[in-house]
């Protein structure tokens, strides 16, 4: 971005919005919006409380478990759908429905199935993240050049070797893109799950803060969550950049 011929770094626009927030907050227009400096101070205090630390551990645990499950199930499922027409016909419709459906509506059903606890949150993360991983993996497998597979066969690759040495690698750029999008959706899953269950982790904190109109802490928690989602997306994007060199160069 350039202003009056000067190069301005990307984050500068964020600074402008922080100043706007500070001014609006100081004008005391709304109860909803305390000044930004108060929010920062609240965030600083918040991270030192045992309730936040406990909630973070619970949240991270549920997020990581759900994501590991989604990746572990999603990639094989996507490969299966990419390779087998029968599996694709059988599952394709459902995967597409779930990947575009408003999944928040299903979370109450999960609560009935898994109870008011961490299991429901894990299930929500899994359900939010898995479909895009399946779809991207499938697309990646579909795009593998047939001659690459013929090549492996002609040099004597067994079925197992074909998957381990060719198919998984050839589809890796799409699989990673799927995981990145899955992680972002997983963050949504963990937040929505916790908000609806409302007695676990961040959900309980959000509930407490908003009920008691502790808006500075409420916003502090929101900002922490946003930052977390951005950092995760950024990390995966770095990993993707490492395999990009062949994603773009495929025949």
């Amino acid at each position, binding site marked *: 971005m350039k202003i009056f011929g000067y190069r301005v770094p990307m984050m500068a626009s964020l600074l402008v919005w922080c100043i706007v927030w500070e001014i609006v907050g100081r004008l005391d227009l709304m109860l909803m919006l305390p000044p930004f400096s108060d929010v920062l101070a609240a965030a600083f205090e918040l991270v030192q409380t045992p309730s936040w630390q406990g909630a973070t551990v619970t949240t991270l645990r549920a997020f990581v478990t759900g994501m590991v499950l989604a990746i572990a199930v999603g990639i094989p499922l996507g490969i299966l759908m990419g390779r087998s027409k029968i599996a694709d016909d059988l599952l394709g419709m459902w995967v597409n429905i779930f990947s575009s459906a408003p999944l928040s509506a299903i979370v109450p059903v999960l609560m009935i199935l898994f109870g008011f606890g961490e299991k429901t949150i894990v299930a929500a993360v899994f359900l939010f993240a898995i479909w895009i991983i399946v779809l991207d993996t499938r697309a990646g497998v579909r795009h593998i*050049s047939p*001659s*690459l597979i*013929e*090549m*492996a*066969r*002609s*040099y*004597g*690759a067994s079925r197992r*070797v074909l998957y381990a*040495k*060719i198919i998984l*690698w*050839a589809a*890796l750029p799409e699989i990673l893109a799927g995981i990145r999008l899955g992680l972002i959706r997983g963050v949504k899953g963990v937040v929505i799950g916790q908000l609806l269950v409302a007695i676990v982790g961040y959900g309980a904190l959000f509930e407490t803060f908003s009920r008691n109109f502790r808006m500075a802490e409420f916003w502090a928690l929101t900002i922490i969550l946003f930052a977390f989602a951005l950092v995760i997306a950024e990390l995966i994007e770095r990993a993707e950049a490492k*395999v990009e*060199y*062949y994603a*773009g*160069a*495929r*025949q």
Partner: protein
Amino acid sequence: MRDAVLRNGLKPIPAAVDSIVEVRGISKTYGDVEALRGIDLDFPRGKLTSLLGPSGCGKTTLLKIIAGLISADAGTITVDGKQVSAPGPERAFVFQDFALMPWATVMRNVAFGLELRGIGKAEREDKARHYIAEVGLAGFENKYPHELSGGMRQRVGLARALSVDADVLLLDEPFSAVDEQNRRKFQEDLIRLRTTQNKTFIFVTHSIEEAVYISDRIVLLSPRPGRVSRIIEPEVDRSGDPERIHRDKHYLDTVDEIWQGLKQYVD
């Protein structure tokens, strides 16, 4: 039997040409398109045989059936006296679109056939390095395919096929995705390789000039359904300067003769 003949100081009978690949009664139909009908062919050992014909004559299908990548509806393929129906170590394939692994270096790509055979890293890399040099890519061992030109990529494909030490090399229009200048150079290299490697080459092409330029034997296929229409053995002298071949009278006559025969299939 042959030993006896040689001991007696007599020449082997020319009729008993030693053929390494025998194709008998191969037919293949895709849906309601008859790609190949009753193909009978012998491929002599140590020679370069081209399968030549217009598109749709089933030449690539035939090559892939010989490779064991496609199964025939009827007929048998015999390699070195053994009937085959799947890929085997005595045959190596060179692909039209190179079929290189973009995530692997030249070294790993060339050594991949050996890797699949369970040969240790040090040994297969030694072997691969030798063939990388053989095809003129020494110094490019650690490059990735996208850093190479089309011609160089196909050299990697060729080195991979050479390194598994198969008796029969199957080449599916290997130069069609390579630019003209590189193709010329590549054809010259192939003529040279053929004399040093002592392998049997089966070469699919749609270029008459290319077939006459490099082949000992040309099998002409006619389209819809694919059948053998003629077998030609061009008497082109390939010793000496490869440039000269393009002006050789036999070369020009054979090209013209094949063109006259194929003209009718061009719409």
